[in-house]
């Protein structure tokens, strides 16, 4: 293998223009590669993208549907970004979502007749605690035993997935239902819609709350600067007197908790029944792979409090739009799954070009 005679050098200091230009350009390149996929399905790419974007943003109903998908995505994206910020590679948001939803189902089904003002906070808090607990285990295993959290959080997803499968196919199964699912949660546990007739519900406000909280934590709190210090260099942070383990554990609690609420959000805002294993291996029927999408969103958003909501919205558009494009043109709807990878790869190139430039050298 011969490498061309190119010289890579660091840019002096990328200005804001460069910092925005390259990521945007890399997404455009990714959409260009996506056009090849659409063409491979025998559809004119412009027509395909027209249906994708108009299906996600074309009218009030479409926008409402996109915001309805945006809600859990913002939650999981924020959860993962927070964890990644201190290099706690939490890719277990899918499992944390599912366990949050499971515990919320327990309360939602058991306490039928409880008024909304009591039951809704109860399911949210229980979902938060369940997700937090499930995320703290890998954090402790990392702190105490140096067990790689990439592996433990991800394999944890499968454990929860089968556990959920066991519950809804066995002891929790609603005998009157044709497929495995739990009985419906109490009507008082259902998240009220913001505008009647549209699927956006109060989960949207909860998600915005956590996105703002993430912003405030990072920008305005000591804890936030500790998180950033641990992320930049754990050893140096330890030397500075920061209790690295404590930062790790507290981040895991908030990260897992937010992901748990994403699960509650899907239970009480969308499905109303606890559901089992999804068709796509590794995802839940209830979580729809939003936990994994959170990892994508966190990375696309550059782990920043501004970037993550933008990325979550973009992802919501891609998911909602891919469904619309499928209905209109027949391009398979996993289009957005493929785009996740294509965008990330292009983005890595874009980030590289933000900080480095390539020059040809002679000889």
């Amino acid at each position, binding site marked *: *293998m011969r490498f061309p005679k190119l010289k890579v050098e660091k840019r002096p200091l990328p200005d804001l223009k460069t910092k925005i230009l390259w990521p945007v350009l890399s997404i455009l390149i990714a959409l260009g590669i996506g056009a090849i996929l659409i063409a491979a399905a025998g559809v004119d790419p412009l027509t395909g993208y027209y249906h994708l974007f108009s299906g996600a943003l074309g009218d009030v109903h479409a926008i409402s549907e996109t915001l309805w998908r945006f809600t859990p995505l913002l939650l999981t994206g924020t959860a993962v970004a927070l964890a990644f910020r201190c290099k706690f590679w939490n890719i277990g948001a899918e499992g944390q979502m599912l366990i949050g939803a499971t515990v919320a189902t327990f309360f939602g089904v058991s306490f039928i007749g409880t008024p909304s003002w009591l039951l809704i906070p109860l399911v949210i808090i229980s979902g938060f605690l369940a997700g937090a607990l499930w995320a703290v285990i890998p954090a402790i295993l990392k702190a105490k035993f140096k067990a790689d959290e990439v592996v433990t959080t991800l394999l944890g997803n499968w454990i929860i997935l089968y556990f959920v*499968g066991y519950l809804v196919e066995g002891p929790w199964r609603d005998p009157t239902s044709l497929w495995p699912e739990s009985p419906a949660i109490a009507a008082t546990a259902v998240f009220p819609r913001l505008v009647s007739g549209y699927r956006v519900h109060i989960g949207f406000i909860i998600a915005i709350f956590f996105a703002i909280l993430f912003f405030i934590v990072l920008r305005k709190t000591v804890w936030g600067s500790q998180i950033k210090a641990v992320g930049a260099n754990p050893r140096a942070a330890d030397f500075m007197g920061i209790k690295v383990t404590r930062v790790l554990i507290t981040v895991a609690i908030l990260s897992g908790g937010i992901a748990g609420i994403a699960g509650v959000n899907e239970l009480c805002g969308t499905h109303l029944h606890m559901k089992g294993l999804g068709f796509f291996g590794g995802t839940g029927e209830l979580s729809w792979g939003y936990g994994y999408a959170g990892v994508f969103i966190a990375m696309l958003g550059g782990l920043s409090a501004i970037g993550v909501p933008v990325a979550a919205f973009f992802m919501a558009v891609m998911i909602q739009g891919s469904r619309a494009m499928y209905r209109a043109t027949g391009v398979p709807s996993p289009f957005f799954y493929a785009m996740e990878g294509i965008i990330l*790869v292009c983005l890595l190139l874009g980030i590289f070009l933000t900080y480095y430039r390539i020059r040809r050298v002679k000889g």
Partner: protein
Amino acid sequence: MEILTYTFFITFLAMTFRMATPVLLGTLGEAFAERSGILNLGIEGIMLVGASIGFMVTYFMGSLWLGIFTAAFMGLLMGLLMAFLSVTLGAQQHVAGLGITFLGTGLSFFLYRLFVAPEGGVPPTIVPFRPVEIPGLSGIPVLGPTIFTQPVLVYLALILVPIVGFIFYRTTLGLNLTAVGQNPKAADTAGINVFRIRYLCLLIAGALAGIAGAWFSMAQSSQFLPGMTMGRGWVCVALVIFANWSPYRILGGALLFGGIDALQTTFAALGVAFPYRILQMLPYIFTIVILVAVARRATYPAALLQPYRREG
């Protein structure tokens, strides 16, 4: 009753080797990548590409071997992309690997829907690899019907163990790639091409992961399903640590994992009155447990996660 126990034992042992095969292949590949200093988290995605491409080529061309070859080749290309991102661009290896996994997972699902089974369609099947009896050896009691009556890929994976061991410990390449993973700067000074070695290791890791993935759709079952590798790529990332990056210990780890996996499958097949969903958790719990047990003592390649860039 005695016959039942014997049958159970043989089924279990044969199943152990089959369940171990994909993780063995994948983990051997991961050992190449990590010994040279690159954490390859793309393995799960590369496996899924191998599973889907291998299945599709076999389905349309009717040749299992062409399917395996294409799966390996596509795995190699994914490895090349991983190398470009992590070696040439020096991207954060966690992020690059997750990107590759997203790419492989998503593309395999999209292509499957596009070319094989549209939404709501019935997933088609192929005729998968059948067990091949090794003449002379397949007659041995216990070993015959277990080790020596297996699909060819099982033999391939087992033979690779000493080959990889030989490469790691007895060849210049092996010494060089270990040097690159320990101290790339010193290796570079000694005249070893760090970039070339890391590229080569990721290509090997990719090809092996591609074959490992093809196992799922072409030997373990006869169809491709999205996400069908069921986290086995991540199991490989755990096993390579458990095995301390040694191919012989990888064989041990893979067989251990295969055993646990086979236990739950055999139990389910025998209709043991235990919720099979709970049994299905076992391999994952087991992997986490062994990772936690050894993680403290693991001696990671010193330069793992550090991109190498020549100064000046």
